[in-house]
């Protein structure tokens, strides 16, 4: 417990790096995720993440070493390709976007697996540098990585705040936005680009299989508590940042796993699980949109209706009531 507090309050050097990195990532992803969630683009992040694997592999094959920024550029390029394939084909053909997302996830990831098997038997012979992108390896984050992630995250957050009004308009009523003469296509593309960038900077820390959780879980959690977009974005950022740091802290300080293997608790999944547990609690107890509140409301409405029906029946029985006007 003490160690966890030390991690979260960033008292140790190497841990501080990891905590700052994942914290910045969590904040940016949480905020961006709100727009993805409300624009019904939640799983696009998943497609981008899976599609980035061949990009990472190609970049690795080209440069032959694990150079984080260049690998991420590769990831970004393929991620954008995947996202554009979905967007363009959705508009130009009758294939539904869910099928397109699934096909892009499967076949791009398949291409990545093929390239991985090429890398494995190639001259450099190790894919250890790339394995980290699949499951995530926040603990291996060095100072430069943390700085890169934080800078990109700050830029993204600044963009969100600068364009908040326009993005809100496009998110809730894109037709109205078009009527006002706002560049809806460009803003839509911008949201897409921000989602891509966010996904890609999350890859090294939580891995491409789970990075989508950083985008949507904090946003879905924040959605439980508020009806205002501004509050939701801030709340999702806070939830994303805190759960990321706590998750990374847990994975760092939990005793080496109970299993005989002595393996450690993986960081990415721990972040996702801590965000997931906050979501479960929120979904249960949130005052207006929570499960418990919903059940109470349902029960109360049922009782009211029953009472009214009973009263009417009594009235009709006396022959005086209007009857049937429920």
């Amino acid at each position, binding site marked *: 417990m003490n160690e966890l507090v030390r991690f979260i309050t960033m008292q140790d050097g190497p841990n501080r790096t990891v905590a700052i990195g994942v914290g910045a990532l969590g904040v940016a992803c949480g905020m961006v995720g709100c727009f993805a969630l*409300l624009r019904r683009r939640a*799983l696009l992040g998943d497609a981008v993440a899976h599609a980035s694997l061949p990009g990472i592999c190609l970049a690795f094959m080209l440069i032959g070493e694990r150079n984080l920024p260049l690998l991420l550029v590769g990831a970004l390029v393929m991620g954008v390709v995947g996202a554009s394939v979905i967007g363009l084909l959705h508009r130009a*053909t009758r294939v*539904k976007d*869910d099928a397109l997302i699934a*096909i892009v996830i499967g076949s791009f990831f398949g291409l990545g*697996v*093929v390239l991985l*098997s090429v890398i494995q038997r190639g001259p450099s012979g190790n894919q250890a540098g790339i394995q980290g992108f699949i499951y995530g390896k926040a603990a291996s984050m060095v100072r430069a990585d943390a700085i890169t992630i934080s800078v990109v995250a700050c830029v993204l957050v600044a963009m969100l705040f600068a364009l908040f009004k326009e993005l809100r308009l496009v998110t809730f009523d894109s037709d109205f936005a078009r009527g006002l003469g706002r560049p809806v296509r460009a803003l839509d593309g911008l949201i897409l680009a921000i989602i891509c960038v966010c996904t890609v900077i999350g890859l090294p820390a939580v891995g491409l299989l789970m990075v989508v959780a950083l985008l949507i879980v904090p946003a879905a959690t924040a959605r439980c508590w508020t009806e205002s977009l501004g509050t939701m974005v801030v709340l999702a950022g806070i939830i994303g940042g805190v759960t990321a740091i706590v998750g990374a802290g847990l994975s760092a300080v939990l005793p080496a796993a109970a299993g005989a293997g002595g393996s450690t*608790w993986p960081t990415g999944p721990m972040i996702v699980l801590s965000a997931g547990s906050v979501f479960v609690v929120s979904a249960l107890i949130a005052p207006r949109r929570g499960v418990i509140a919903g059940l109470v409301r349902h029960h109360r409405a049922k009782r009211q209706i029953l009472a009214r029906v009973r009263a009417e029946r009594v009235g009709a029985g006396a022959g005086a009531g209007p009857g049937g006007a429920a």
Partner: protein
Amino acid sequence: MSELVSLTELKNIVAGVCVAVPIGVLGSFLVLRRMSLLGDAISHALLPGIIGAFVLTGTRDPIAMLCGALVIGLVTVGLSSCVKRYARVPEDASLGVVFSVLFALGVVMLSLVPRGLDFDPDCVLFGQLEFLAMDSVQVMGVSMPRAMLSIVPVGVLSLAFVIALYPRLKLVTFDPALAGALGVPVALYSGIMLTLTSATVVTGFQSVGSVLVVALLAAPGATAQLLTDRLSRMLVLSGCFAASSAVIGCVLAIQLNVSNAGMIAVVAGSQFAIAIVFAPRQGLVSRTLARVRLAARIAREDLLATLYRAWELRQGRRSDLPDVSIAGLPSARGSLAAWQLRRASLIENDPASTLALRLTDAGLTEARELVRRHRLWETYLSSNLGLPPDHLHEPSHRLEHFAVPDVVPARDEAGRATDPHGREIPAPRA
């Protein structure tokens, strides 16, 4: 054949086909019901189910794994509909929340599995078709991969379910409301379908991997959907595409010495890409061609109608228009239309000036028909929809390229049919 693949590899290919076909066929229903992402969610969420079953029983017993998969499949569906309903999160996001958290749980469990037990995480994710034949059993004197013992029964069961209940499944897929009204237990059928999908996915995870299964669930069905409008044909085609991606993928992988499962997914995706470009009716090429053809026809018709109106204005004298720009067409499209009409000898160049155009006799007949349609549409829009006179031309100008409404035009005292602007409606072609 023996040069292309060895006997072991042939067995792997057969196993791959047996895995792929049921997944492809069941995936077609997911594609049609817009539930492909549910397949994605289930295949990610299977991880904790498989590992849970593995840890509890300590073996790779297929029955235990099937049970684990079944439980987790139902948990995924139940939880995500719960999240959607109570937390009122959009459907795709609720699926994403559920499966990513379950997947994270699975990865954590994976890292806790003692190393002593033989369980390879990469095998779960990426599939290792290559090693399937290493673990063989004798069945009726034939040596086959042990995995076939679970792959074949689940596959046969799924296909039998689809074939036996085909009419009902069709109804449930395309019109669940009607099916419910007719007394078909829709939820039961959907449940069985999802259960079978989870079962095929879990039997397939060893060979194609839990992530790559997503490609097989969506791509063959979507490819087949591009090629046909009939469910029966779509199901057969999706089975064929799944089988062909397994065969082609394995052979390519063996030749190039790369991952089998990855190659299967790539081939499935490539088949879809080819179909989306070249499919006879739904493909990008044919759709673009159809659009270009339509634009060319409209340009031709606009030009003819313009020439007719000019002819009418000059009371039957031809040799009217300086060039195509007067028809209000962009110059390239106009020139193309003029060229095509000239080739069809509907218009000709005025002998007096090489630039000017005029209608031939055949062109006059064509053009009269077009203007007739335009004026009939104007009459229709005026009398049936009550549009004011100054709003009639534009819509009719668009509609004249399509069928004529069945209207009896207003006749003036002289017995001549006129449109709302008082212009004569040409008589129909004899």
